C-alpha cells in the first residue's frame, strides 16, 4: 500500500509536469486506451448537466486535444503551474483505485504576473495497465463557474 501510494503520487506529479513543463505530447501516455477525460465546472456537476469544457472519450481524443493545443490553436503564450494536495486513493475492487485530490493551477501569461487561475477537485480512476499506472478516468472539477478568458491546457 505504501509503495502503491508513492506510485500514485508519482503519477500525479508526472501528470502535472507534462502539462507545466512538457512535453505535453507525452501526456496522453498517462491514460488508458479507453480513458475518459473531462474538465468540468462544479456548476454543471451540481445541476447534473453533462457539459464539459474539455471532453475526451478515448486516448485517441486526448491525443487530438493535445495536437490541437500544440498545433492548431492561436493562443497567447502562457504556462500553467499545478499544485496538488491531499491525494487519497481507495482501492475500487477492479484492480484499481478511485483517487481524489485538491488542485490549484496558477497561470503565467507572457508579459504578465503569475495569477491564481483555478482551484478544484480531481475525481479519478487509476488502473495498472501494461506495467504502469494510468488514468482510466480523469475528471477535473473547477470550483468556479467562470473561466478567466481561455482554458488552453487541461486542469
Amino acid at each position, binding site marked *: 500500500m505504501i509503495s502503491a501510494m508513492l506510485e500514485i503520487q508519482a503519477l500525479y506529479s508526472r501528470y502535472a509536469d507534462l502539462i507545466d513543463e512538457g512535453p505535453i505530447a507525452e501526456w496522453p501516455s498517462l491514460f488508458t486506451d479507453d480513458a475518459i477525460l473531462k474538465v468540468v465546472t462544479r*456548476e454543471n456537476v451540481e445541476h447534473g448537466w453533462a457539459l464539459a469544457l474539455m471532453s475526451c472519450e478515448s486516448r485517441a481524443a486526448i491525443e487530438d486535444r493535445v495536437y490541437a493545443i500544440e498545433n492548431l490553436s492561436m493562443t497567447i503564450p502562457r504556462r500553467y503551474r499545478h499544485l496538488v494536495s491531499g491525494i487519497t486513493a481507495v482501492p475500487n475492487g477492479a484492480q484499481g483505485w478511485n483517487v481524489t485530490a485538491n488542485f490549484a493551477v496558477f497561470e503565467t501569461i507572457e508579459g504578465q504576473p503569475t495569477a491564481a487561475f483555478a482551484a478544484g477537485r480531481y475525481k479519478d480512476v487509476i488502473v495498472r495497465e501494461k506495467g504502469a499506472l494510468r488514468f482510466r478516468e480523469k475528471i477535473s472539477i473547477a470550483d468556479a463557474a467562470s473561466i478567466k478568458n481561455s482554458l488552453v491546457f487541461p486542469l
Partner: protein
Amino acid sequence: MTIQERKWNQNGTHRVPYWVYTDQDIYAREMKQVFARSWNYVGLEAEIPNAGDFKRSHAGATSVIVVRGRDGEINVLKNQCAHRGLEVCRQDYGSARVFQCPYHQWTYRLDGDLSGVPFIKGVGGHGGMPDDFDRKDHGLQKLKVVSRHGAIFATEAEDIEALEDYLGPKMLKLFDRVFTGKPLRIVGVSRQRIPANWKLMFENIKDPYHASLLHVFLVTFGLFRADNPSRTEMDKTGRHSALISQRSANPLAPNAATQEMASFKEKLELRDKRLLDIVKEFPDPATVVMQTIWPNLIVQQQANTLATRQIVPAGPDAFDLNWTFFGYADDDEAMCARRLRHANLMGPAGFVSLDDSEVMDLAQRGIHVDPERAAVVEMGGRGTEDHDHIVTETAIRAFYGYYREVMGL
C-alpha cells in the same frame, strides 16, 4: 476627454474610432441608450422548467432574477430589495416559493410584489411602518418580459415594439429555425470573463472574414470557409445579423482560396473521428448559422452544437460571456452524446472559440496601444447591405450604423 468632445469623424462606419471600446463615459451611455432600451436575452425557459425555479441573470449589466411564477409565467425582476437595496437573490440557480431578503426578511412574491414586511404594524404597539406605507409601492422592479419558443427576453423600456417586430421577418425566421417551439433540453452552461469590450464579441461573430483565416479547425474541416456557399444578412436596422454557411462537399481539397489561408493544414486528421460525426438536423442546407441579436445575444448552430451566448458588459474593458448549450427534449442518446462531443468546439476551451477569446484579448490590448486611431472596416466595401458571401465586414458596419444612431455619436 469628455464625451462631448468625442467626434466620430468619418461618415459611414468603415472607420470605428477606438475610444468606443475604452471610454468610461461611452460605456455609461451604452448602459442607458443601448441596453436599457432594447430586448435583452436573459435565459431559456428550459433552465427554469418548474414553478418557482429561478436563475440569476443580467439584462445589460443589471442583475436580474428570472423566475417562473406559480402560474407558469416568467417574471424578470431587478435583483435589488425595495427596502435598503440588497441583492435578494444570491444563487445562480434555485427554486423558491418567495424571495426573502436576508436583512429584514421583506418577502416578495415570485412576480416581485411585496408580500411581507416583518413588524409592519410594530411590536407590542411600538414602531412599525407609517400608515401610508403601501406594499404595492415597494415591490421588486419588474421588467417587461417576452418568451419566444423558450427563449426569454426582458426590457426596461415601456414603449418598445413587440419582439417579433424588433427582430424583423428575416431574423425571426432564422431565430425560429433553432427555436422551433419544440421543448428544449439543457446540455450545460459555460462562462468566461473576457478582458475585452463587449462590442468586440459582436464584431467577432459578425465577421466571417476571420473565420476562414483564424480557425484552423473550421477551415481544414470545411466547417466554415471563404469558398463555401454563404450569406451575410441583416435586419432592416442593421442591428441584428446572421452568417449562414454550408459545409464544403470535399472539405480537404486545397484550392485557390485555401492558398491565401495560412491556417489551412491539408493533412490534418482526427484520431477520434467522433468529434466531427455531424448529422444533418435542419431542413435547409445550411450547416452553420451564427445569429447576433442586439444588444446581447448570439444564437449559434455549428455542427450539432446549439447554444446561446449571452453578453454581460462589465465596464469598457471586460464582459462576461455566458454560454447555454442546449438540445431538444426528444434528442436520442446518440444525439445527446454527439452534442456533448461537438461542444468541444465551443466555450472557453473550444477548438474554435478558444481562438476567438484570445484575439479579443489581443484586440482590447492593442486598441489601448493607440486609442486615437480607428479600425479599418472595409472588407466587402463600405456599405451595409446583405452579401451572398462571407468575404465581408458588412455586418460590422451595419451594427455600427445603428449604434451611432442610438448613441447619438
